[in-house]
């Protein structure tokens, strides 16, 4: 990995990409959004378990590390979601069908993306983490706030970016949202 050469232009271009992405999703332009992902997309939402702190690491940061709580793709546990391009295509197609009853009438969303931190720039890919808040309001239900971190691999394609890998770390203790089957 080459040393990260972080320039205002690089930071700005990544932030702009995320703002456009959020705008498309909030505007329900999922078909346009779907052009922002690669065909080898991996989209992971780890599940988050409540485990006691690690006694053996007493006094160290590892004692309470977040990673211990995540059941992702490499774990023996079960992530909430581990999807590729085809599953995501089904979700996009579903959004435009009459009988997607939980989204008809459609829910309202507003995404705020921040703390965009470029961790690595490896020629054709960037590793980027960002935080998000998503307000979600489904008719006939309460309003909900999803909070979390996205751990992305962005690929440089045609002078822009595409999402090749996204891991969504949701900050819930108990899931009392109507669904986590959304585009985060």
């Amino acid at each position, binding site marked *: 990995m080459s040393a990260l050469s972080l320039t205002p232009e690089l930071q700005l271009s990544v932030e702009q990409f995320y703002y456009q992405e959020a705008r498309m999703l909030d505007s329900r332009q999922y078909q346009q959004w779907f052009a922002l992902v690669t065909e080898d997309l991996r989209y992971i*939402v780890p599940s988050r378990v409540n485990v006691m702190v690690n006694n053996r690491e007493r006094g160290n940061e590892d004692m309470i590390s977040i990673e211990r709580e995540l059941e992702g793709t490499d774990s023996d546990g079960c992530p*909430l979601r581990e999807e590729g391009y085809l599953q995501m295509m089904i979700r996009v197609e579903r959004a435009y069908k009459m009988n997607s009853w939980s989204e008809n009438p459609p829910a309202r969303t507003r995404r705020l993306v921040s703390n965009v931190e470029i961790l690595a720039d490896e020629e054709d890919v960037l590793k980027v983490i960002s935080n998000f808040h998503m307000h979600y309001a489904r008719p006939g*239900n309460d309003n909900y706030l999803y909070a979390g971190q996205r751990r992305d691999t962005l690929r440089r394609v045609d002078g822009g970016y595409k999402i090749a890998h996204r891991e969504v770390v949701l900050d819930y203790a108990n899931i009392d949202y109507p669904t986590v089957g959304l585009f985060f």
Partner: protein
Amino acid sequence: MPFKVSELVNDDATLVSRRCWTDSDVYELEKKGVFGKSWLFLGHESQIKQPGDFVQAYMCETPIILARGSDNGVYASINSCTHRGLPVCRADHGNAKRFVCPYHNWSYTVEGDLVTIPQERELQSRPDKSQLGLKQVPRLESWRGFYFGSFDKDIVSLEDYLGDQRFYLEAFLDRFEGGIEFVGAPHRWVIDANWKLPMENQLGDVNHGPFLHAAVIPPEANQEIIDHGLSAVTEPGHGATFRLMPEDTPVDNVAWGMETPGSILGSAEVHEYLRATQAKAEERVGPLRARMKGLTYGVYPNLSFLWSNASFKVSHPRGPGKVEYWSWSVVPADAPDSIKKTLRTNYTSLFGPGGILEQEDSEVWSQQFRGSNFDFADDRPYFYGLGLNEEKPHPDLPGMVDVTANEHYARAFFTRWRDALQAVEE
């Protein structure tokens, strides 16, 4: 209670009152008559392999610790300190030598015995610790690695309780030489619904599929259910739906796991594994059950199973209008790790809190509660009469059997439920 239980469900259970779903007095009767008198699923042996391994569970709203003791036995204790009642086990799962209450540090073994009262060093008297352990669940039994607990010390054995439902459960569980294992911790989420509707949904209601899930389930999948689907009720409260495929069905159309997204997108290695498993099915579960391609099951009162997605689920009530829903992916225990990781996505793609089908289910379950929880409509109970008396004994299959559109599974459930509530009604 302003009404009698007999007013809630009519004789043949074709009419079910809105109050069954919403009334807090009914819920109190359910705790006594249903959850106090049944076998309730706690966990699977694959979750507690080593001494000290534990998982949390619930029996209705009562928190339970299911643990493997130092003697390798399995114990089910109520998770509440004998001193001030706090939960002594604070993690979803793990491995422990002791459970320590945070308040005054009374500590218990994983078997539930009280071992330390730190305060007693400063006092003259010594409480009798043998009388102060965690309360044990009165009955604990297992079948095929599935542990169930009951608050009713006089309840029939678990095997008798499951009865002929075992025939249908074995059709899945016995297919795999090494048995099945539960994949990690359950997914748990809260739905503003009554606990009985998720249960009813999988007890036999595959008929909602082509309507509620039409955006995702293809018409040919529904046609297969119309052509070959059956709904069996071995005894009231249990239920199984499945397709009984013709004898000449190609292996890919009958093998477990082949029809779900993880497998469809999976590698050739996965497909070969599923075909090889099906090739042994006749020898393992017999020619009839080898042709079974399951849909959904229910075990009274609140355990469900999805065959193709290989998921067990429990509907834990949290009052009349709230459910804490738990679901697990299960995989063949002896499958290679890479195949297990593919097979678990048969569940996550469609079910669980992020599942593309489940999001529709959760929505209608909560809307049904909303649609029940108001006044001035009690003269319009819900109609449960579809297919009344059309179910019949089957020459080869246990239970009463008919097409899946017949709501006999739900009538049978509500008959048992009504009788269970009447038995504890004052």
